[in-house]
């Protein structure tokens, strides 16, 4: 690399970083390209970690991502970024290396939200896991293979539910504790979440709704033996999975004068990072889980999606804008989509369901665990979810993108609208 040509640096070497770097090369960028990653591993795929890796069907290191373009890049793996000097255009790494850049693609992603340790509560017992990285999955796999007496999962989001499903596949006793009436309540509402409750009942997961875990107790060896609940009760457990979502990895940007916090790095619609005054910071773009961008389908609401498809699409979009002139910065228009597999069911969703005031099951039925449900807000379709009914989803995604009336498709063969009512979302979090 010529010292007078700093080139493009991509911070974050996971899915968004890799696909962003590829998009830069595919877009014709021929200058120096550096990828920085905090983990020592080459870019890997996360979705299998909470499924096949936990189940022992795939080794943790089997999830390396294919490279879809010739990168000709310099890799700096195992070196987290620790600081950014925007005026000098220098990125600082943990080992003291300073990388000059002309443009920077920020794709540092997110990390598992750890169990909150409060002053005076002492060190956390051993045997308490989170599940986000390849190393997390490897450690948890070893713990599950050792045959714990009861796994306690704290949090009934997608990761918690997938982990519960795996634990049952492994024949392990498992309790899932969640403050809401059903799992997936925040993303899908409890009307649809109740289907997961019935799956859990069939599979033998001990689901505890309305349950707040307050603290963990350790045995003499320092290993977790019990979770204490807010209502005074306790759950005996020797292996805990804390599945409380993720926080965005922006601590390295604390002094950079950007609008960044644990909820993400705020960007404009063109994926340009905004400074603390709300202006696009020259040469700075963001993509993937860390990027908090206005969503055109939800009234410009700022959202940082933690979705595989968003990481790919947004990284490609940011790369495109990085190579375009200032007067040709295009807005990112992406309808969020995700998938999950648990309890043998393929769950897929499009759009953001939270904020819906109505939901209707429009194909199949909840009782059969095979259905498509669509969500509406103020008379418009805003999201759809399928349980083993994926082929209907693209048609609904199109209608949602177009802002169609709710429900958007009527009179389809085999269609009988059921469960038309309130989606039953929990109150917003107070903390």
């Amino acid at each position: 690399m010529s010292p007078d040509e700093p080139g493009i640096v991509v911070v974050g070497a996971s899915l968004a970083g890799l696909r962003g770097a590829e998009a830069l090369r595919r877009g014709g960028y021929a200058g120096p390209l550096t990828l920085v990653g905090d983990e020592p591993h080459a870019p890997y795929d996360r979705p299998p970690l909470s499924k096949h890796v936990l189940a022992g069907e795939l080794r943790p290191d089997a999830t390396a991502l294919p490279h879809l373009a010739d990168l000709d890049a310099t890799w700096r793996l195992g070196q987290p970024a620790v600081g950014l000097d925007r005026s000098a255009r220098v990125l600082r790494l943990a080992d003291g290396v300073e990388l000059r850049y002309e443009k920077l693609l920020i794709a540092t992603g997110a990390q598992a939200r750890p169990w909150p340790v409060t002053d005076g509560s002492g060190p956390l017992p051993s045997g308490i896991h989170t599940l986000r990285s390849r190393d997390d999955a490897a450690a948890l796999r070893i713990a599950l293979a050792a045959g714990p007496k009861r796994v306690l999962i704290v949090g009934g989001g997608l990761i918690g539910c997938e982990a519960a499903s795996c634990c049952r596949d492994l024949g392990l006793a498992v309790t899932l504790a969640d403050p809401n009436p059903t799992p997936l309540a925040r993303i899908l509402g409890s009307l649809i979440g109740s289907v997961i409750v019935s799956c859990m009942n069939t599979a033998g997961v001990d689901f505890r709704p309305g349950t707040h875990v307050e603290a963990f107790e350790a045995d003499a060896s320092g290993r977790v033996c019990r979770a204490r609940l807010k209502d005074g009760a306790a759950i005996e457990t020797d292996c805990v999975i804390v599945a409380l979502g993720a926080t965005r990895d922006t601590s390295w940007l604390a002094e950079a004068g950007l609008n960044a916090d644990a909820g993400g790095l705020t960007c404009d619609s063109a994926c340009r990072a905004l400074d603390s005054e709300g202006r696009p910071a020259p040469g700075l773009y963001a993509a993937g889980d860390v990027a908090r961008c206005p969503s055109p389908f939800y009234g410009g609401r700022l959202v940082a999606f933690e979705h595989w498809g968003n990481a790919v699409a947004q990284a490609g979009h940011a790369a495109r804008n990085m190579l375009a002139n200032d007067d040709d910065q295009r807005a990112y228009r992406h309808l969020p989509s995700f998938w999950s597999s648990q309890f043998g069911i393929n769950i897929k969703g499009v759009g953001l369901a939270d904020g819906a005031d109505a939901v209707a099951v429009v194909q199949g039925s909840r009782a059969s665990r095979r259905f498509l449900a669509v969500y509406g807000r103020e008379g418009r379709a805003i999201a759809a979810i399928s349980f083993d009914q994926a082929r209907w989803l693209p048609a609904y995604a199109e209608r949602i993108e177009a802002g169609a009336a709710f429900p958007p498709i009527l009179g389809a063969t085999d269609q009988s609208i059921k469960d038309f009512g309130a989606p039953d979302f929990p109150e917003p979090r107070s903390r």
Partner: protein
Amino acid sequence: MTEPRKEPGAGPLRVVVDLNRCQGYAQCCYAAPEHFELRGHEVLFYDPTPPAGKQAEIARAVQACPVRAISFDMGSVS
């Protein structure tokens, strides 16, 4: 600093399926049955690291997918 593998074909292939795109048509399961498996109605399980010798089979699976959801490389890295 860690350099990923450089030599083409030195290790297994690397496969990823865009499971947002996947519609469970299961054509990959016919093209490369050892490496793609449909479970239940539409959960696709696939082998992300097939041996290098299976390249032709994986390429057939890629070509058979009606929604173009499968990508792979030769395990080489730039």
